[in-house]
């Protein structure tokens, strides 16, 4: 358990994080299909004040949307279409397996994952999106359904702070019940069922959803100690590899290749992939994740979609 001092410093960190992400927009990658007014572009063409285009009336259209003035002037029935905006429910899936409890002394990976989750939740909640969190750990799945109420971010914080990363977790299984037309941010080190997660994420994206992968990497994983040691996987005692001789170089090469292939695989599925190193501020990661959505929207607009 953390003592009062660490809790206070963590609160300060969270406060600084929320201040740092204030004003950050996290637009949906594509037009959402929701009808509830929100901040994201909707595929719906509704009666919003902002005119988008006129379209000839077709049977079945709501007669109330006919531009009567234009009908009177031109004797042609057009309906008035406008850019509609909607909300998108956001679920942050946090990996709480034992591999996230690293380094053992500082739990930097887990703290980074929690900060990212809180930051993303705060950003989404600022846009009045329903925000929820799913914590997948060795003791099971803890699910906080997406809500728009004011205290939802605090609930997310408490849920994360009361969780201890341990055991093995299957994020892919946790994603099975996730709503397909939602925005899902997966904060994990992807050292478990990475392929299954990506496959499930691809299915969600294909169904109209939006999945962001935030790969949390500890600084010690990128630059392990140079002394001879026997590295043991916290989730599988059978994996024990000596770091002697050229083993470190081989490790760095293999780990780098794996991270590259992981990013390539996610991006190849049309998903966003962001690597978060524990050495960098969580707010910067949140901005990168949100910026990926902004960039995607800009590209979509530029391509006329």
């Amino acid at each position, binding site marked *: 358990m953390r003592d009062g001092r660490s809790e206070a410093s963590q609160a300060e960190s969270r406060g600084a994080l929320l201040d740092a992400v204030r004003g950050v927009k996290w637009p949906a990658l594509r037009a959402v299909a929701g009808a509830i007014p929100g901040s994201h572009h909707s595929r719906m063409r509704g009666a919003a004040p902002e005119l988008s285009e006129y379209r000839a009336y077709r049977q079945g259209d709501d007669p109330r949307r006919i531009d009567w003035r234009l009908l009177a002037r031109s004797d042609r029935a057009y309906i008035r279409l406008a850019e509609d905006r909607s909300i998108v429910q956001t679920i942050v899936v946090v990996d709480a397996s034992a591999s996230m409890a690293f*380094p053992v002394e500082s739990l930097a990976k887990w703290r980074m994952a929690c900060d990212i989750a809180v930051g993303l939740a705060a950003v989404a909640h600022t846009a009045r999106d329903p925000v929820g969190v799913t914590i997948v750990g060795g003791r099971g799945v803890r699910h906080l359904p997406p809500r728009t109420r004011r205290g939802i971010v605090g609930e997310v914080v408490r849920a994360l702070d009361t969780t201890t990363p341990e055991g093995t977790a299957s994020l892919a299984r946790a994603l099975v019940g996730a709503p397909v037309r939602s925005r899902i941010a997966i904060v994990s080190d992807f050292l478990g069922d990475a392929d299954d997660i990506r496959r499930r994420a691809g299915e969600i994206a294909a169904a109209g959803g939006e999945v962001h992968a935030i790969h949390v990497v500890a600084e010690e994983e990128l630059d*392990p100690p140079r002394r*001879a*040691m026997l590295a043991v*996987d916290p*989730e599988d005692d059978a994996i024990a590899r000596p770091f002697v001789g050229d083993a470190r170089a081989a*490790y760095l090469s293999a780990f780098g290749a794996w991270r590259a292939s992981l990013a390539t695989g996610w991006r190849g599925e049309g998903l966003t992939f962001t690597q978060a190193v524990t050495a960098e501020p969580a707010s910067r990661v949140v901005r990168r994740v949100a910026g990926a959505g902004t960039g995607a929207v800009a590209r979509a607009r530029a391509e006329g979609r």
Partner: protein
Amino acid sequence: MSVAAPFFLWVAAAVALATVAAHLLAWRRPPTTVLPTARFAPERPARVVSRAVRPTDVALLALRVAMVMLAGVALAQPAFGRERRGSARVVVLDRSRSASDSEATDFARAAFEAGDALVVFDSVAREVPAATSDSITAGARLPVGHARGSISAALVTAVRAAERLARNRDSVEVVVVSPVTKDELDAATGAIRGRWVGALRVIRTTASQGDSTSAARPEVSAGANDPVAASFTLVGPVTGGARVRIRRASISAADSAWAREGGTLVAWPANADGAGRARPSSPDTAYAVVAEIDGSAGEATAAVVASFERRIVPPAGRVVARWGDGDPAATEATLGAGCVRVVAVGVPASGDLPLTPAFLRFARQMAAPCGPAVSLERASDSLVARLLPAQPAAAAAESLAPVEPDRGPSRATAWLLGGALALAVAELLLRRGVTSATA
């Protein structure tokens, strides 16, 4: 402790050092660190070679070093005990009837040094435990025995003592202090000498004056004008006469005690109240008496043809003289180391019969020492040199199984090898335990 093959000790020490070095460079398990991405490191054995100031698996190392050293020491054939230093002697002192009282002990005392072994013998041999020069002096105060000496028995005991001394000494010499008379040698003497691979020295002393082959006047106790005493006056010295007493009267307790110590007591009673018993029938007359002191008729036979009045019957015993009709005239019986001879031959006080040459020969026969004639003649030097050579004959040494001077090393080697084997088994078990623990 001394070793026969120190080369193996050096080899064992080298192997032990190599073992220690191997433990310093042993495969060891590096410190364990949690790393979630450990799977990206190449898969290799969990143990790696590394150097360390302190050896790993101290118990296993100790077992291995002990096993190697034990095997090395065993192969080096150690001889435990005191280091061999100097020489020693086994002084074999003759205390038989052949030895003189003083001369043999003087020679033995001169030859004896501290740490030597002392074996005294007559017909049997005995090693004096923790012998010193005082032991010889104390032994000298005791009279020599009257038993026949046995050099063979003495050599058996001496060789045993010499083999024991040889474990701690560079050289051991057996010193035999004895006149080495003929009767002390037998057919086994040469073979027993051959069993001792070391040196043997014979210090020959003069033979005892109690030599039954030397002539001396027997001690005659008789009254005045005794015919038998007159006869022995004419007989003069007889062979072995120094240990012969002739009693015409009754035998005293002192005479019996003297006879028990090896003397020959001749009871030649003048009448029946001295020894023997009265003839049950009336006294009769015998016309001849024949002495057959050696049990067979021959040159030693002394016959006296005269008329003797037979009034006494000698007691039961070995017959040494018979009357002309075959009845015992004189018998003898063993008493302790000596004997008592009863001569039931009445000698007429009148006449010159006791002075005749035939009777003198008969008297000489009756004054002979008990039993067969004992020859204390010293053996010839050539015989002694042949049977008791200073060094064993090569042929004898080859034909006879040489006595291992020291069996300690072989026994110790067996024990050490057994210990090394036991340590090897323990090392195997311990290694299995360590392997399973580190797996």
